[in-house]
């Protein structure tokens, strides 16, 4: 069942005023794979991400996740179904420590509410220490152990990226949407990130990636989707995409090559 479809976009459209940001996009992501979305700036990659995660509503089209229609659901409900995401610009909770950020990521895995928390019922304490333990383990997995009690706003940019990634993984999602995780990272950090993404995939988490770093995309992707001006330009294996004349034209210009 490794080729079972976990996420499917069916004819998604989105307009921003006169701009047709996403045009009739159809694609699917197979379980356990790394799929990348590439395209020039303004191709609609992030908009597509926002449509998938429910951050903005689509004008038309449907999103199916694990066989369930999610395009009318709120982002928090979609997250609770098992879809986690990161942002192009990191959105950590700046005044919270790294550990607290991760523990906030385990929100849907815990369930203490206002009354139980206010009374500090014994089971909430067990839940809390369990949550703390699991979060520590996750930080070790991401080799972030040394930053555990650091306030997020004091972290270096590369570390913030990793923490955001770890926070998304804390949901124990079925699919992880990464929006340009390598943006602003140096070559070493990018390499480390590639390995990390593969390790996350090995945990059984499907990955959908938007990225500009071509070498990284070609290295780790199982499949690539190319967007241009909001529409799907090509879809296929990395080596097919590399040879695709349309893709080359879009990336290198109109001239013959």
């Amino acid at each position, binding site marked *: 069942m490794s080729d079972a479809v976990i996420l499917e976009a069916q004819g998604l459209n989105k307009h921003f005023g006169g701009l047709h940001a996403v045009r009739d996009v159809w694609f699917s992501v197979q379980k356990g794979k790394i799929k990348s979305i590439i395209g020039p700036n303004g191709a609609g990659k992030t908009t597509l991400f926002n449509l998938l995660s429910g951050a903005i509503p689509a004008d038309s089209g449907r999103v199916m996740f694990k066989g369930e229609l999610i395009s009318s659901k709120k982002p928090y409900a979609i997250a609770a179904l098992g879809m986690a995401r990161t942002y192009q610009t990191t959105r950590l909770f700046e005044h919270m420590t790294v550990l607290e950020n991760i523990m906030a990521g385990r929100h849907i895995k815990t369930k203490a509410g*206002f009354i139980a928390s206010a009374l500090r019922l014994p089971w909430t304490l067990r839940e809390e220490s369990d949550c703390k333990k699991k979060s520590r383990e996750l930080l070790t997995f991401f080799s972030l152990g040394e930053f555990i009690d650091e306030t997020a706003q004091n972290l270096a940019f590369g570390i913030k990226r990793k923490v955001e990634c770890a926070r998304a993984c804390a949901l124990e999602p079925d699919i992880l949407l990464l929006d340009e995780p390598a943006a602003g990272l140096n070559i070493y950090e990018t390499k480390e990130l590639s390995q990390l993404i593969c390790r996350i995939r090995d945990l059984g988490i499907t990955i959908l990636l938007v990225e500009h770093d071509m070498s990284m995309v070609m290295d780790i992707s199982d499949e690539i989707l190319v967007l241009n001006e909001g529409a799907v330009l090509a879809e296929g294996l990395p080596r097919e995409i590399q040879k695709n004349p349309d893709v080359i034209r879009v990336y290198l210009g109109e001239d013959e090559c």
Partner: protein
Amino acid sequence: MNIRQYLPAAVFLGALVAVQLVISLTGAAFYFTQITMSFYYTIVVIGLCLLMGYAGQISLGHAGFFSIGAYMQAMLTTHDFSSIIHSSWDEVFKNVSQIFGTVEWYELIPEKIGAILGIPVKLFVGLGDIFGMFVPGTDGFGNGILSYAPSAALFISLLTAIGIACLIGLPVLRLKGHYLAMATLGFGIIISTIVFGTKLFGEADGISRVPAFHLVGPLSINGGMADRTVNYYIAGIILFIVLIVSMHIVASRVGRALRAIHGNEQAAGSLGINAMRYKLGVFVLSALFAAIAGVFLVHYNGSIGTSETSVLKSVRYVSIVAAGGMDSIWGVVAMSMGLNFVSLRGYFGSFDEIFFALILVVTMLFLPRGLFRKEYLEVVIKKTRRLTRRMVLKRKLEKKGIVFANKKKDDEK
């Protein structure tokens, strides 16, 4: 669990007893009144601290929730309900419509309900006093009246506050920043206007002759001279319970969710946190705290006036939270106790409100993260620790006969 978490709470209890002993021993018992009132106002401020400091949602209408608690409690315990108790539902509707000055619609409702159910209207018997909710008393003219017992009124008042907070919160919390501030400000003004215009709430006169609230045994909340010390402790303990509850919430999954929403609402949503639900939850909780303060303070003071509903009161609560450090409960408590006490003693004179506005401006300009913060304390601790360490080292070396000429060399060692 972490015992150290409860250290500030223990300090609070210690301070409670210490202050009482000092005041009693020095014979300055008149201070108790202002301290007790400060305790109650601090409860409002703590609720606002959870809402503003942790969840990052401003409210300029908390004097409104305080007033709902206080005015409902005062009205229910002083108004004569005997006619309602002995009347049928039909008359209840008549009474209600008289209060609000409308006519006739009440006559239709019982009949229609009766018609739908297929029973004559007269079958709706009197409300009666099923739960012993009513107690006899006297009004200002010495006439016998039948009002709600304070304990029954407490539930009605708090439920009213919760209900109104839900109704207001649902639409208003969709707004952000300035818009939320303006909407809550509007709510505060509405409550103030309703109080001013409703006969039931005493219009501009307010409500007086609020009876004592008998708790258990000899304990009762009232403003009498004899019960001053007891009331100091009652208020202190109520505040203590509110503090513990708030502290637990802050250090829990809920507290984390609130801070996450404060940090970045979209990111919180992407983690499965239902922001609206938590924002509403903390809004209702803070409204409940405000109402609790109102309910008890009205029994302590024995009366309530329209000044409590004014928007300036809301601004005062906000400025105390800002000055205390937004997301530091204990800092806010310290700030609230200090400022309320000084204000209630009348040290600011006629410039009371100006003073609080000034505090807000100065805090926002120079100490945007508040006056009391752990970080500041940590700096002081670090500095003193280094200083003492250096002095100990110096003394040791001096004993060995090594004397350093200047500080620099000392550092190098």
